[in-house]
């Protein structure tokens, strides 16, 4: 879909591992493989949605993309620069271009700062504009996110959850970023407020051509806002496709289970769910083979140990992990290593 366009962001084989230490000497005894070999592209003006259950590593991936975390290995190409291993000083001027919105606006806004200082702060840090220009800019930003100018002199705790999220968005917009990582931006909000914020994000994207990396656990929300959707399971992307395709024609067993678990909003259309046993396994010492195959105790699990299980293109723009435990036998025949099929990771 965006083949010809040069991506804004290009992540390649990204890994973020956290050491697990134990004993009196705090020796490293293992690692939490929160993000374990992820490759993704985001085009200018595109929204890439990322879904997965808690603990799958989606927030860690989001933080690594804007370098709030240092990745263990892999590269993060933002426009023409690999930002994956830049130090804080070198990153600072680049941070103008990528911003982040957090789940809990109450915790991500300083209660001792007025709304004006919160939104103005990034402008000051980057030395942009005179005092009067900045005042003007804050007023414009408030207007864009649908808050009255009078909000500027108040404090964030005086506002409701939805309004606080608007303040968070205004702060993220202040530097006119090219990419905003949105980490569960609407999950703490009531449905009627949630739709207001989603509409705002869509409008801002149309006005400024911003790219979003939209992380959420709510599949209906992700489907609504995204151009393409990536499904993450235990640190790896298991399926990636245009939003409509992934919902119409999911290929991976985990994606199918996730979609089936969404409650239907029609009491007459209650459907039989694919009920998964158990929970997401621990990313400390993950299963050696197919992680999802292990959870569903698939008979082919043993065979997957040592397989690459790489994300492979099954139809144009639709990638799925080549994993015999998670595909229909027909799809597996097509994607078997050695057969034709273009690997996403190794390209």
């Amino acid at each position, binding site marked *: 879909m965006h083949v010809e366009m040069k991506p804004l962001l290009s992540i390649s084989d990204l890994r973020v591992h956290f050491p697990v230490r134990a004993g009196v000497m705090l020796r490293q005894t293992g690692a939490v493989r929160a993000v374990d070999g992820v490759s993704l592209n985001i085009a200018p003006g595109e929204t890439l949605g990322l879904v997965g259950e808690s603990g799958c590593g989606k927030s860690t991936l989001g933080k690594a993309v804007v370098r709030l975390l240092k990745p263990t290995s892999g590269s993060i190409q933002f426009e023409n620069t690999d930002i994956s291993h830049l130090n804080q000083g070198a990153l600072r001027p680049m941070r103008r271009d990528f911003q982040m919105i957090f789940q809990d606006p109450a915790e991500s806004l300083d209660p001792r700062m007025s709304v004006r200082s919160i939104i103005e702060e990034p402008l000051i840090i980057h030395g942009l504009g005179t005092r009067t220009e900045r005042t003007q800019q804050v007023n414009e930003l408030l207007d864009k996110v649908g808050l009255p100018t009078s909000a500027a002199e108040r404090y964030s705790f005086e506002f409701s959850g939805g309004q606080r999220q608007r303040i968070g968005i205004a702060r993220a917009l202040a530097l006119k970023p090219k990419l905003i990582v949105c980490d569960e931006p609407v999950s703490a909000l009531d449905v009627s407020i949630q739709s207001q914020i989603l509409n705002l994000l869509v409008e801002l994207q149309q006005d400024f051509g911003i790219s979003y990396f939209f992380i959420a656990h709510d599949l209906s929300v992700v489907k609504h806002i995204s151009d393409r959707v990536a499904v993450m399971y235990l640190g790896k992307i298991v399926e990636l496709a245009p939003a409509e395709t992934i919902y119409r024609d999911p290929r991976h067993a985990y994606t199918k289970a996730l979609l089936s678990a969404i409650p239907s909003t029609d*009491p007459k259309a209650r459907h039989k769910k694919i009920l998964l046993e158990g929970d997401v396994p621990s990313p400390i010492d993950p299963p050696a083979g197919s992680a999802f195959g292990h959870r569903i105790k698939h008979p082919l699990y043993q065979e997957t140990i040592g397989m690459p299980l790489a994300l492979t293109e099954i139809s144009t723009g639709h990638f799925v992990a080549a994993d015999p435990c998670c595909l229909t036998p027909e799809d597996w025949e097509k994607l078997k290593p050695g057969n034709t099929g273009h690997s996403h990771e190794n390209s």
Partner: protein
Amino acid sequence: MNGDSDNILEVDKLITSFETDRGLLRAVDQVSFSVPKQKTVGIVGESGCGKSVTAMSIIRLLPQPTGKILGGHVHFKGRDLLRASEAEMRNVRGGEIGVIFQEPMAALNPVHRIGRQVSEVLRLHQKISKKDAWDAATEMLDLVRIPAPEKRMMDYPHHLSGGMRQRIVIAIALACRPDLVIADEPTTALDVTVQAQILDLMGRLQSEMGMSIILITHDLGVIAETCDEVVVMYAGRVVERASAVELFANPLHAYTKGLLRSIPTLETPSKSILNTIPGMVASLAEHTHGCRFCQRMGRVDRRTRERPTLAEISPGHWVENCPVCTSK
């Protein structure tokens, strides 16, 4: 509305207030609904609409000393719980009425083994030996489909995942075979796949044990999936009440319609502008006497100054009859 044998619970004009710096605020303002035997009634609404306070008023578990029930009746199996003694209430809570809370980690005691916490409720409500209670508790864990229940009885809550913990909380709520279970956002803290497991489990246990359920949630999907009847609350009042099939097919109140339209479903076109409900729920102190949804929408005129009455538009379908909010 008394003694109807088809209903296990009847809430009649319940009023609950909180003492605050800004005076006495009514969190629940004349709420009435009933729970039929072996059915599930959902209470849905946005945060602060009074849905949890309504449920906690039924079992009289309000924050003290600020929370006060100022009026109404709660008929449960033929007696009024609001006039029962505290000793009677202790028997009702956990005995005849089980409660499932949202946050399983907060509902479980972190320093006691699972076995002790599940058997404790049995020991409190039934005259049985420690050994029998332990065995019954093990059976309960098996009933809520916890693998290797004998082993899990010796675990502490932090050993278990969120979904497993919620199963323990359900086991405790159901241990005494209650007639009614109040589930306050039982799946909100859980992932969708685990939510599907828990909702499926609750449905199966209901058909096995025959209890009624009051399910409090903000998620209309969960309501559509599990409830027989629905109560929609807004700003401390019931604005609409109907069977689930009727409510989703034929919502009458502007608030219900707004809620239903603002959720993106898999069918809504991507990046289309979603329907929104302008403004937000006003704080309790700012509420006026008249139609509160009109207040949110900024429609204050002669017609909306009086409090609308709840009217039965078609059999079993009740709506707060504000002339503006219920017009087509």
